[in-house]
């Protein structure tokens, strides 16, 4: 009744092609962005930033990145953790080599470095497909982790092989290092998330995104209608790795502050991001956010309810958490194999017709 197209007249092609064609959607989007930008920074504290918002925002960027490659272009990748490590180590090397340059540029540069590495590891995708490509990207994962562990130049020859982010400021407010105020870390990541989501959304509905989707749906047919698979696949790898690299750089510099490659960017990370996009919804920007929220927030919520609320022993709660999260994943995949994004889409369809579905 309220959620409908009627009365929302489009008088130009731009209006017609906009991301949120319904007025109520648009308002909702503006409202969420406004609350996130203006209200949240004032009420946020250390716990909320470090336990909830930073992981959520950073994993959302990583999920958007992987979603471009896997969801939009159909190339399965198990190398996300390795590419995040490239972003993190790239950022670290740049931060320590050029301390006077603003950290924002380092993070973007880290994304570009990761994009280049992603293209190199994407080359096999021109010859191999499906599970075999997954194995090739798995090799990237292991190779990159091994490289960052093995070559001490990457961690500036520190005794422990750990990299730690020195303090860097933006407009003389620290955004990395221990003195960072919670709102600064949050806003810094949020701006990256907004920029990444905006770029991703517009790339995926442009010519480039259409060529990715053509390759995903049937690569031979796409080739016949004139889509260049070399260009489409490699751009998908480059753009995807760019986002994943930014996520890795933020993960290291802003969120954790010190990482160890095997622990922070191991194969589990690749799986975690892959689960996020499968649960959130392949080929959907909203799905990337929903999946990241599901995988990040649910364990924290369960922990707080079971241990903090009910006072259960921590180990019992930790085991139950695995079971509940695992059970919910299975449940969602059975009920809606296309992920939370599809559930959201269906809800919106139903809302449009409500209360007169016939």
């Amino acid at each position, binding site marked *: 009744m309220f959620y409908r197209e009627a009365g929302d007249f489009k008088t130009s092609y731009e209006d017609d092609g906009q991301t949120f064609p319904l007025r109520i959607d648009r308002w909702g989007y503006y409202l969420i962005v406004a609350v996130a930008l203006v209200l949240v920074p004032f009420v946020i504290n*250390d*716990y*909320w930033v*470090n*336990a*909830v918002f930073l*992981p959520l925002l950073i994993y959302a960027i990583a999920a958007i990145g992987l979603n471009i490659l896997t969801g939009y272009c159909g190339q399965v990748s198990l190398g996300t953790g390795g590419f995040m490590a490239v972003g993190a180590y790239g950022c670290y090397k740049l931060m320590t080599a050029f301390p006077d340059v603003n950290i924002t540029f380092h993070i973007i540069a880290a994304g570009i470095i990761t994009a280049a590495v992603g293209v190199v590891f994407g080359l096999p995708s021109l010859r191999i497909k499906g599970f075999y490509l997954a194995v090739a990207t798995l090799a990237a994962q292991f190779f990159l982790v091994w490289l960052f*562990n093995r070559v001490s130049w990457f961690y500036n020859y520190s*005794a*422990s*092989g*750990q990299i*730690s982010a*020195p*303090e860097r400021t933006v407009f003389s407010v620290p955004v990395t*290092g*221990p*003195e960072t105020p919670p709102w600064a870390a949050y806003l810094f990541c949020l701006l990256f998330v907004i920029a990444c989501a905006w770029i991703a959304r517009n790339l995926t509905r442009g010519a480039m995104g259409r060529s990715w989707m053509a390759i995903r749906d049937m690569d031979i047919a796409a080739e016949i209608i004139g889509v260049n698979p070399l260009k489409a696949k490699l751009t998908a790898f480059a753009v995807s790795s760019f986002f994943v690299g930014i996520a890795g750089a933020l993960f290291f510099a802003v*969120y*954790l*502050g*010190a*990482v*160890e490659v*095997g*622990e*922070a960017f*191991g194969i589990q990370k690749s799986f975690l991001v892959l689960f996020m996009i499968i649960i959130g919804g392949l080929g959907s920007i909203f799905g990337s956010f*929903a999946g990241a*929220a599901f995988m990040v*927030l*649910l364990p*924290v*919520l369960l*922990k*707080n*309810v079971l*241990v*903090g*609320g009910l006072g259960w*022993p*921590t*180990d019992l*709660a*930790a*085991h139950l958490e695995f079971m509940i999260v695992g059970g919910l994943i299975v449940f969602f995949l059975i009920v809606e194999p296309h992920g939370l994004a599809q559930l959201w889409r269906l809800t919106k369809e139903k809302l449009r017709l409500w209360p007169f579905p016939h």
Partner: protein
Amino acid sequence: MKKTLTMLALGAAVAAGPALADLVFPSLDYRTGPYAANGIPLADAYADYFTMLNERDGGIGGVATRVLPCETAYNTEKGVECYEATKAEGGLVYQPYSTGITYQLIPRASSDSIPIHSMGYGRTSAKNGSIFEWVFNYPANYWDGASIAIKHLLEENGGDLSGKKVALVYHNSAYGKEPIRTLEELSAKHGFELSLLPVDHPGQEQKSQWLQIRREAPDYVLMWGWGVMNQTAIQEAANIRFPMENFIGVWWSGSENDVVPVGEAADGYKALALTAPGSDFSVYDDLKTHVYDKGLAAGAGDQSGSVLYNRGLYAAMLAAEAARKAQEIHGEADITPAMMRDGMEALDITEELLADRGFAGFAPAFSVSCENHGGNGMGAVQQWNATEGTWTLITDYIESDQEVIQPLIDADSQAYADENGIEPRCN
């Protein structure tokens, strides 16, 4: 998602609870995950000792203690979450039992003015208290461990290791890499040949490393392992018939969990020790009366007397003594984390004090000062007897080679100070 957030807020609000006057000791433990077998005895002991203090003495200086457990599963992200969740409740000192989490917490806790005690792990150069104001790693650190192991080998070889081959099997992480620099220095000093064999997390796959050991036939193998990596390594060593008495683990590679699964073949395996093994100490009588018999034991209550349980007890005792010291210094019973730090820095563990607390002969005496946050670097060597199922100390407490270690600590801590713009204190 909004609903999730509201529920989350609710959960956090319930978790925060009312503020009580008590001494909060957060326990960032891991009873799940790949290192759970080692995390459980440590966590049980930490909780049991404070329960005992509450039951027997009504806490420390009349204020009840409260152990605040938080499950990290040895995962740094969860460690950060735990730190943020528990610091709001006034955690006095953090002991994460993970080098990775310790590295995370060093800058955070230093900026929040909360002390960290990484007992025998963490960042070695934190021993330099003039730069690491909030971090303590007494009574010994990894570099001490490396030096103690080499000193033991020197003793066995009549003071000469030249021409000998020593291999280091290590967990390929910050933890395992720590001793390398010291061992390289020591190898230059004593003329032995060092070879490095990294093992990736979690360490169940070590065939190739042990094949290499078999080929190179080193005289001695040192190990920096944790969790399942230890028992796998000892099993592999047994498989290639490597003489167990030439195989020495660091203190994190020398618990019952590591040798029992290997059975008879593990007989003679050596490991470093921070404390004496077994339960032959009067503190165990008090634990029995006030904790076990009342059914207050943490976890399954089956860990008492094991190596890691003893280490957990030791960590808890040192924390409790530091809190007592802090109360003394500031004349206030309900201390803050900053006061706790002063207590830790003024800590002086003497033989009399150990005996009084029921720890006679349990560990060597040591003291902490403003410059030295790492104690005296004493450790002993213990050996496993598979038939009796017991660890026995086979040496006295050996002091590490400070001549080699101190310059390394100065250099590394100075690098940290330069990176982070820290002015040395204690002048």
